[in-house]
């Protein structure tokens, strides 16, 4: 099976999963008590009025018709209008998406950038201070709820020493570049600096759990890989230890680490939701929570669909990297 065919197969499976996500969101609507009409109709609406609203929302058709309409609309990107604000759901969600992506990408970069070296060092310098430090940090890291970590960071770095803002978001990463483009580098740099000031605490909060998790994975992965018999055979042919450690062991360690990255993406997005609410970061997370509290169904539905689809796309990327590193996966 060639590499391209493997990706094509994963892509098709991805589409099936997206279809699954969309269907579950549809089903969610029907297993929740109360119904859409209450959310829209005024409390004292007469039965006829409620009737008309239901018809308008298409709720009187048989289930499968509603499902097909729902799918058809979705394909055209039309996810209905917010019950509360009346804004088109898709535009609202897509306007909030960049903030969440920024946060997720920033924290992932921190996590991967820090944890791989940490994991390797603590695996290769066992029972030395570096190992104990990395193990302790990673143990505390995965045991700390990220909202509490966020609050503590705010307490220390914003309230006490005022280095960072306590919440909110200045410019988007992309906006900073646009400003730099049309208002000159100075303004751009300043916009970028502001962006950095606002995103640091949330990114660190969200990234910590992940850094700790991947450090632990890399460490145990490296230890296991160094115990493999091919390492001993490679040593027997006189290869230097550094080459064995990085070219051979680390490369094979990255394979399971990347698989777990794919699996733990859900945790990352889940973490983003909380981090956004702690720092009131204007991303999908806050939108989601508001939509649930106000039972604003179209927005909730749009958010869930976007999160689910985003998850599948990112997983596809992870699969591509994984298959590149491990030739046996493509062969199976």
């Amino acid at each position, binding site marked *: *099976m060639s590499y391209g*065919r493997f990706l*094509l*197969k994963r892509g*098709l*499976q991805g589409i099936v999963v997206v279809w699954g996500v969309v269907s579950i969101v549809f089903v969610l609507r029907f297993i929740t008590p109360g119904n859409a009409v209450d959310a829209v109709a005024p409390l004292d609406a007469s039965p006829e009025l409620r009737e008309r609203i239901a018809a308008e929302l298409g709720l009187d058709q048989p289930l499968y018709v509603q499902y097909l309409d729902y799918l058809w609309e979705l394909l055209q990107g039309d996810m209905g209008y917010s019950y509360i604000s009346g804004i088109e759901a898709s535009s609202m969600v897509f306007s909030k998406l960049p903030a969440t992506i920024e946060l997720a990408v920033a924290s992932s970069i921190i996590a991967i950038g820090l944890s791989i070296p940490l994991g390797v060092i603590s695996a290769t310098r066992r029972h030395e201070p570096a190992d104990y430090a990395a193990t302790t940090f990673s143990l505390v890291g995965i045991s700390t709820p990220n909202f509490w970590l966020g609050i503590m960071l705010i307490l220390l770095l914003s309230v006490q020493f005022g280095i960072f803002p306590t919440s909110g978001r200045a410019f988007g990463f992309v906006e900073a570049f646009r400003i730099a483009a049309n208002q000159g580098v100075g303004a751009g740099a300043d916009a970028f600096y502001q962006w950095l000031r606002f995103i640091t605490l949330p990114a660190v909060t969200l990234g910590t759990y992940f850094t700790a998790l991947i450090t632990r994975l890399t460490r145990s992965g490296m230890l296991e890989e160094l115990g493999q018999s091919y390492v001993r055979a490679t040593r027997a042919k006189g290869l230097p230890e550094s080459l064995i450690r990085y070219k051979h062991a680390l490369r094979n360690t990255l394979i399971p680490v990347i698989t777990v990255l794919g699996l733990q993406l859900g945790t990352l997005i889940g973490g983003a939701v909380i981090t956004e609410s702690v720092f009131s970061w204007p991303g999908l997370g806050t939108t989601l929570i508001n939509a649930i509290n106000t039972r604003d169904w179209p927005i909730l539905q749009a958010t869930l669909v976007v999160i689910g689809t985003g998850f599948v796309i990112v997983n596809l990327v992870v699969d591509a990297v994984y298959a590149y590193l491990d030739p046996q996966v493509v062969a199976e």
Partner: protein
Amino acid sequence: MTETAPERESAGDDALVEVRNLRKYYQDGGGLLDRVLGREATSVKAVDGVSFDVREGETLGLVGESGCGKSTTGETLLRLREATDGTVAFDGENVFDLDDESMSSFRRRAQIVFQDPFSSLDPRMTVGAIVAEGMRIHGLPESDPTVATAAELTVGDGIDRTVEVSVAEDLDRVVDGDDGVARVSVTVRKDEGADDETPYEASVDGYGDLLGATVEDRDTDLHVEVTVTGSANAIRKKRAGDLLERVGLSADQVDRYPHEFSGGQRQRVGIARALALDPEFIVLDEPVSALDVSVQAQVLNLLDELQDEFGLTYLFIAHDLSVVRHICDRVAVMYLGRVAELGPTDEIFENPDHPYTEALLESVPRAEVAEQGRRVATLAGDVPSPRNPPSGCRFRTRCPKVIPPDDIEIEQAAFRAVMNLREEIEAENLDPDEVRAADPAAYRKEEVPGIAGENAGVVDEALEAVADGDFDTAAETLRDRFETVCETTPPDDSPGGDGTVVACHLHD
């Protein structure tokens, strides 16, 4: 040569197991998505039309290198895997279409012992539970109405009345009956010291608390009643203990776990488990391959003793030919999912007919000093993939005696080289530029020495086609001249009158 062998071989050896045209294909990549991607499902033809008989009381060897399908045959035979095609008759009935009830009785009559001491015993069960599992599944030991029960009575001194003893019907659940009678010895004594009104007591020797004896004082005589008091579990545990003793372990290890035993001891537990249901036929799937030589010998001797004692029939699957020579009465040599040769052991080992058997025997290093100088003509190449086995005779790609067409004169070595070249061309492994650079004739001299005249001319012509990148014409030209019966028609591998097989055109 009829397709299916006559039912009855020569008088007296009626076949217990008759395998006819057994096939087992493994589908892979047949998933929905694969079809969508246009990748048709390829199947691995692990067993591709195998027929043989296993006669009552004999040990039939099933030999071959890895990938030849011998283990798959053994497992499919016992329906541990679903067969793709073919029939297996056990004592006359086709195993593949037994209903549940007769399937359960088949399970009791046919058992299996596996190869890997570490994977064949459930690490979380005690050795006693492992051996007794079969009995628990089939609700054994049940009482067999045809077995009579009897008791030898020894009366202690001081008892003046006649003593009469009766034994429970299901005594044979505890006591093994030999030739139809389960016998137990009971002693009755008068207990001087006892002051209660029935001074007499009776006890059964042996069998711990599984059997109880009660004395009833009917003023004219004493009536002793022997009953089975042990629970079914207790009885099974004792029987498991007996089985462990029988295979050379000790009964008090019944509560130990597999990890406390060595490789050889674990294989003995596997054998005890197979014996628990008192089977007639056992498939031994490489039972000693994972053992060291000294332990191997112990287990082989044990298998011999058990065969004589219980009249067992073995299908002995192995890749170690010297072990097969030692223990098997007849041997079937398998290659790439088919039987290459089948016959009495000494006949096969002393003068093998099939070239593969010959090469196999040649390759085995003998544990003797003379082995040092022995010139061994080894087989070239690797076993082809069972996904698309070679056409005609499957051994033709490696056979040192491939049959040239009648109308041409060619040495065997040269013909073998031509056949190898043909395979390279058909697999399009040759590099056209390399052939063009080296000029076809020179390339031919180097690749296929020892041919001349017209043969050489045809090969050069083919190599020219290769040089132009046209592999099909090259293959075509070579096939016209050098096509051999080995590649066109598969040799006949159905058992002959005396049950022997030589699947090779040299012996048609």
